[in-house]
């Protein structure tokens, strides 16, 4: 595996407190990190650049899905063979990137999806656990795809997959959009156990449980307005 062909994409919005640590952790395992600063009002872009990441900046806030797509297109332009999506807030463990990549290559699948329920989750509240379990059931019923985790931002994707799939949902519904694509096109995927650590910072920055209704509305409006 040529590690120079692996790119990690991190969408960031007002993450100056943690982005340096996240980028440094990732750079310990891969050579290329691209941080997409989604119109932060703090110093996220400069901190990420100083930490050794390529930095792209949105002049308007698009949302996490939009930022990831920008990073993916940039990575493809730079000749990446594998693209990893990774959260900015320090929830994910960078040491799991390469094992996940190896598992993807061995399985000859197009995408590896991180699963906190196959792996470990630290400090997960019971409310969040129930929301996530409901989302798993919902995805199984509506999308016909059986997974153990559905809103995990830690993924490894092949170049081929990224060339044929585009996030059109700019905001949080992108995570459901990718699953719908997998189901609709019979794309081979694997789930890989990952560790998610909820810190006070990530809980404060992360999604509220009520956002699940917002995601449903985004998906609905996305379908009716196509």
């Amino acid at each position, binding site marked *: 595996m040529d590690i120079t062909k692996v790119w990690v994409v991190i969408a960031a919005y007002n993450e100056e407190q943690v982005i340096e640590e996240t980028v440094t952790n990732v750079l310990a395992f891969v*050579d290329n990190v691209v941080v997409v600063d989604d119109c932060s009002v703090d110093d996220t872009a400069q901190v990420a650049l*100083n930490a*050794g990441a390529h930095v792209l900046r949105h*002049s*308007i806030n698009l949302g996490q899905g939009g930022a990831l797509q920008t990073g993916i*297109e940039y990575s493809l332009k730079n000749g990446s063979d594998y693209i990893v999506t990774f959260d900015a807030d320090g929830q994910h463990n960078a040491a799991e990137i390469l094992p996940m990549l190896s598992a993807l290559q061995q399985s000859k699948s197009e995408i590896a999806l991180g699963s906190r329920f196959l792996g470990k989750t630290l400090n997960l509240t019971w409310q969040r656990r129930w929301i996530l379990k409901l989302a798993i059931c919902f995805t199984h019923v509506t999308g016909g795809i059986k997974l153990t985790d559905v809103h995990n931002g830690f993924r490894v994707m092949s170049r081929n997959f990224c060339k044929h799939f585009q996030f*059109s949902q700019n905001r949080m519904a992108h995570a459901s959009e990718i699953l719908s694509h997998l189901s609709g096109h019979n794309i081979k995927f694997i789930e890989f156990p990952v560790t998610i650590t909820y810190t006070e910072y990530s809980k404060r920055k992360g999604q509220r449980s009520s956002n699940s209704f917002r995601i449903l509305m985004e998906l609905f409006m996305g379908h009716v307005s196509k």
Partner: protein
Amino acid sequence: MILTSLLTVVFVFMAIYSAIFVRRAQIRYVLFITYIGAIFFVWNPDETTVIANYFGIGRGLDFILVLFSVAIVNALFFIIKHLNSQHQDITKLIRYIAIRDARIPRHPSDTSWRHEQ
């Protein structure tokens, strides 16, 4: 009489506007004929009752209200679709600028330079 005249002016304006500015021919014809029909019914309100009875609705006014509701819902979805399309264009533009103006670290795989600062 005042409301009748006012609605006539508005519908005449909309009929002309549709005929000139709506690009797709089918929609242009449908809108134009609809507004001309609306002008007819403004001046002959009793005729709506005849049509309403045909569709099983008692009063002409109710019939107009139903049609009006359908038109509003349709218009809303057209607006949402249009906004979504514009949003996608903005996204493409923002993305293009972000990638064009990418900032590259001095030594992407060599982090020792950080200690020089």
